[in-house]
């Protein structure tokens, strides 16, 4: 006890120096004012620099003031808190800027005409034209990819959860994980190598194949999670009634988890709808309407955005179209996401209570 008493730095009272509740706000306000002063004085033009100076002042100020009033441990705690808040705010800036810019610049040319006309012979640097051909292409490519990828993904998940034991199942599990990390451009190159060997020209369905490869592991993972949530009692109850296993899976297991499976598939669709790289390699792009995904180059929304940006050598009209197409694409992806989450909440299996 005596050893502890010698070095114990605890204050005798429970009350120690304590900063009032409003102090973080006061320090934040002070730092912003000082940072603005420094910014004006040094003639810094970028508001981002002002913000960074304010953030640094805020963290330092918190540390110094808290050390003086509350002691070192409390000061560290407050610095950690302020750093976490600063990190959060720093991360918010680009993300807000991204959404804000896309919406602000996207609405300029986004109108019914834009949605219902193709580029046709409109030159890249001229205003006019639209994304109808890109929407058609995207819908067809993504739709075909889903027709291939979703059933294979769901069936694989069924295999892993309902049948899977032994080496094959473990190998599938491992490679599904690995496949999740395959860069989209590699999937594109794979199909490209096939096309080179078969001497084929770019067409929409080639892109669908690459997208299907990207989609499968995502669907497997989410479906697996959903199937695992189905209580075993349900399966046993059905099997005990003499229902064969495959009918049990089709009539009991899948219907119970259909909400979650749908959600997973929709999120996977949202992911592949934004993929550009494989489309660039395999579908090539086209400024005319091509309704046939099995022959001839097609357009797709993400590729359209890239080409409007890259091929227009800085024309405002092309940039406006790129932003408008981005807004369309984001809106599509976000709506899919929101609907998917809505379904997940609405159809969530009632586990426990």
């Amino acid at each position, binding site marked *: 006890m005596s050893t502890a008493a010698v070095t114990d730095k605890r204050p005798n009272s429970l009350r120690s120096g304590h900063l009032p509740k409003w102090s973080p706000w006061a320090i934040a306000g002070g730092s912003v004012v000082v940072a603005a002063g420094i910014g004006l004085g040094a003639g810094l033009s970028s508001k981002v620099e002002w913000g960074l100076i304010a953030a640094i002042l805020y963290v330092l100020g918190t540390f110094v003031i808290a050390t003086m009033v509350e002691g070192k441990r409390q000061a560290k705690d407050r610095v950690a808190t302020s750093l976490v808040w600063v990190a959060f705010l720093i*991360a918010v800036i680009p993300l807000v800027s991204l959404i804000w810019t896309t919406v602000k610049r996207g609405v300029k040319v986004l109108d019914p005409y834009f949605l219902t006309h193709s580029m046709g012979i409109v030159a890249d640097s001229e205003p006019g034209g639209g994304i109808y051909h890109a929407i058609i292409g995207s819908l067809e490519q993504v739709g075909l990819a889903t027709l291939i990828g979703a059933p294979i993904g769901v069936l694989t998940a069924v295999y892993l959860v309902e*049948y899977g034991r032994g080496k094959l199942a473990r190998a599938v599990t491992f490679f599904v994980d690995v496949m999740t990390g395959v860069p*989209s451009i590699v999937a594109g190159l794979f199909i490209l190598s096939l096309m080179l060997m078969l001497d084929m020209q770019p067409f929409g369905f080639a892109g669908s194949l690459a997208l299907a490869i990207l989609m499968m592991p995502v669907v497997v993972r989410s479906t697996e999670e959903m199937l695992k949530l189905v209580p075993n009692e349900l399966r046993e109850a059905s099997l005990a009634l003499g229902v064969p296993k495959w009918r049990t899976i089709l009539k009991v297991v899948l219907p119970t988890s259909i909400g979650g499976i749908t959600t997973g598939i929709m999120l996977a669709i949202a992911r592949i709808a934004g993929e550009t790289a494989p489309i660039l390699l395999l579908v090539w792009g086209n400024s005319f309407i091509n309704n046939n995904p099995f022959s001839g180059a097609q357009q797709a929304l993400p590729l359209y955005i890239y080409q409007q940006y890259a091929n227009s050598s800085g024309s405002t009209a092309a940039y406006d179209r790129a932003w408008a197409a981005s807004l369309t694409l*984001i809106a599509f992806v976000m709506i899919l996401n929101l609907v998917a989450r809505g379904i997940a909440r609405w159809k969530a299996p009632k586990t426990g209570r």
Partner: protein
Amino acid sequence: MDISTKTTDASPPTPQPAAAGKRGAARSTSRPGDRIFLGLSRGSGILLLVIMAAIAVFLTYRASLAISKDHGNFLTSFEWNTNIDPPVFGIAVLAFGTVVSSVIAMALAVPIAVAIALFLTHYAPRRMSGPVAYVVDLLAAVPSIVYGLWGALVLVPHMNGLFGWLNDYFGWTGIFSWDGGAPRSMLTVGILLAIMILPIITNVSREVFRQVPQMHEEAALALGATRWEVIRMAVLPFGRSGVISASMLGLGRALGETMAVATVLSPDFDIHASLLNPGGGTFAQNIASKFGEATEQGRDALIASGLILFVITLLVNGAARAIIARRKEYSGANA
């Protein structure tokens, strides 16, 4: 390549399905419906393995065609002239650029993502953390081409101030010297990649921090720990492996990112000491930029570089998964 051998190792094509089939038949009855359904679902699983194997095999085959014609050294040459005869190309610059941009992205994104994950689980007012987590989820869904467009048209102009400042104060290091060109350099790419992988690292870390058992945090609290000390004693040690694997998943994304790099970087085939001057390239960006003008020979060369990218991402993701798997066992034993 070692990947292709790995693939065949892990999925021996003939003996395995037969063995599993016998066991499957013993468990279920021999109804045709059961057999068809099992066949379909197992066939899908096998198809996935076949696809992975096929990716490795076909890329390797086309790459070998290209590399055998290469008159430069494929690993060390600083050139990418694939449309001439004989072609001369090498991946040195691409490997360098890919590593540099990903390292910058990780250095920026990991600390901030961990901080945001802590913010969401331990700092944010409860009413705020739900919506913020939701927004982070949605941002993970923004297509990379949109990040690319934003990066090229919004982020790049904003980098001038930072680049000037870095050049003024740290230009003497060489790494941060700037000749005043458009800031479409490796540093800009790294920053954009950091923004792009922030959501995924945040999401995974958040899940890990959320799983820290209440009782460990309470143990720290009861000893008189401040909030930060609780995080250091109980949360971070518990979540460390999870954060590492989250970071590696993010790294996998950064390594393979194509369009965002292609829109922002102004590439050339040289290695620069400065991160601020335009130049360099990454595997994925190089494929996208060079593809349009490439002949069949050129495409094979691009496929060869893609194969290297494939192997690297496999290793990174495999490592991440291995860490996650180990963590599961570990936390299971201690739950």
